[in-house]
């Protein structure tokens, strides 16, 4: 870890994030995953996902140590069965209502279910995913309260609906503030201090300027969103903190996305593994961390959580949360 003295005289640490994964190995993993998932008619999917995440996390290094993802296919398969049970119960209930000529009630039940199941899935996925992530044996964790989050989510979605989507930026940031603010890295706590208005105007500007420049500005828009996500994030431990900063520019994003598109098109999709590893490497190498937190002092505080139902429900609803 690089160390410098800040103007106040305290030591400023600068841990660097490095990605060691390579497209070729990742291609091998994805290919085997795909093959085994097809052969087993989809049943292998939880194991495939575990292998993929294990590779991506254990290829990411910070201060000489790599991250670990210790979730297993067995855990996710059990979660998958539970999630399937919940969805099956809903389908049966909707069909029973339709049989008794109450399709409107069935529709309402379906909508209510979706409104309730999405925040529950997000909450569960965060609990499981972060609990299975560690660095030097120190677990991450998510300490959000399910009921509190469901209330927040329903309120934010209601306001977004009432304002015909305009409130969406505030909703996204409020949800982000809650989720990231409840993530722990051992005894370290993450803080996210986003502001809905800033995010709204950032996207408004990005949208109109992208149209005016025939899409060229979209790379700079992307860079601004990434920067907004990273720059407002802090890791706090006792009185010490780490600030994160994005160094990616619109030009960097243009280079990444254009080359990714070319790789994907000219390899007829086979190059997807290289596209993903290039993207992860790019994102990690453009995050600067600086502060006075001593990473070696982070202590174990988070418990293990092995229930993957939320993670599987989020997968079924196609919610890319993490």
């Amino acid at each position, binding site marked *: 870890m690089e160390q410098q003295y800040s103007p106040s005289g305290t030591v400023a640490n600068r841990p660097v994030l490095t990605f*060691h*994964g*390579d*497209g*070729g*190995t990742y*291609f*091998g*993993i*994805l*290919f*085997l995953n795909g*093959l*085994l998932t097809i052969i087993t008619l989809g049943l292998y999917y939880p194991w495939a996902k575990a*292998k993929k995440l*294990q*590779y991506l996390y*254990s*290829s990411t290094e910070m201060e*000489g*140590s*790599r991250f*670990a993802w*210790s979730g297993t296919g067995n855990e996710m398969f059990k979660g998958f069965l539970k999630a399937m049970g919940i969805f099956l119960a809903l389908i049966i209930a909707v069909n029973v209502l339709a049989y008794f000529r109450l399709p409107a009630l069935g529709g309402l039940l379906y909508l209510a279910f979706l409104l309730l199941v999405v925040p529950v899935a997000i909450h569960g996925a965060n609990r499981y995913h972060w609990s299975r992530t560690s*660095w*030097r*044996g*120190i677990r991450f964790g998510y300490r959000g309260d399910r009921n509190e989050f469901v209330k927040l989510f329903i309120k934010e979605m209601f306001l977004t609906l009432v304002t015909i989507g305009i409130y969406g930026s505030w909703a996204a940031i409020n949800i982000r503030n809650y989720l990231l603010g409840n993530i722990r890295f*051992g005894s370290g706590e993450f803080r996210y201090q986003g502001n809905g208005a800033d995010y709204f105007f950032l996207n408004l500007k990005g949208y109109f300027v992208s149209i005016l420049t025939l899409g060229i500005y979209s790379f700079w828009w992307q860079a601004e969103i990434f920067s907004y996500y990273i720059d407002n994030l802090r890791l706090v431990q006792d009185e010490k903190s780490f600030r994160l900063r994005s160094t990616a520019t619109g030009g960097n994003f243009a280079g990444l996305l254009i080359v990714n598109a070319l790789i994907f098109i000219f390899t007829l999709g*086979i190059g997807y*593994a290289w596209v993903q590893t290039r993207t992860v490497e790019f994102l990690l190498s453009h995050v600067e961390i600086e502060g006075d937190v001593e*990473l*070696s*002092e*982070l*202590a*174990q505080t988070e418990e293990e959580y092995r229930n993957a139902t939320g993670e599987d429900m989020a997968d079924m609803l196609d919610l890319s949360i993490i």
Partner: protein
Amino acid sequence: MYKGAFYDHKVAKAIPVTVQIFTESLLLDYTREGVSAKKLQWLFTEITVQVSDRNFIRITSAGEEAGTLEVHDPVFVGTFLQTYRHTRGASLHELALRGGYKVGLISLIIVIGILLAGHFFILPWCADRIVDQLPRSFDKKDR
């Protein structure tokens, strides 16, 4: 003897260790500040292994003295996996991690080969067999 870092799952501080590989176990030897030298023996049956490439390996023990050993040494990775695999066997994914793109490419070629063989040889052969079984009157009925 190989060098590695041991983490005790209590704090993120790295404790330098020397590691020895035996046929059915690992022996970790470490000294902490102010504490006398300590030895840990991890049986292969009590550990979980995560390999991400040829240069890095993470071994976790959930036993009485739980901890994680991380070694950045291709020689250790190779030697350990040879001994460990002897007792546990190697999975397809492990081959992919160690063989890099070659494993994926070989699998891809095999799959394409099977598909091509199916299309040009197996399916036509099956079709011929079925045609042989059909009564000739089938063709006449269509006319």
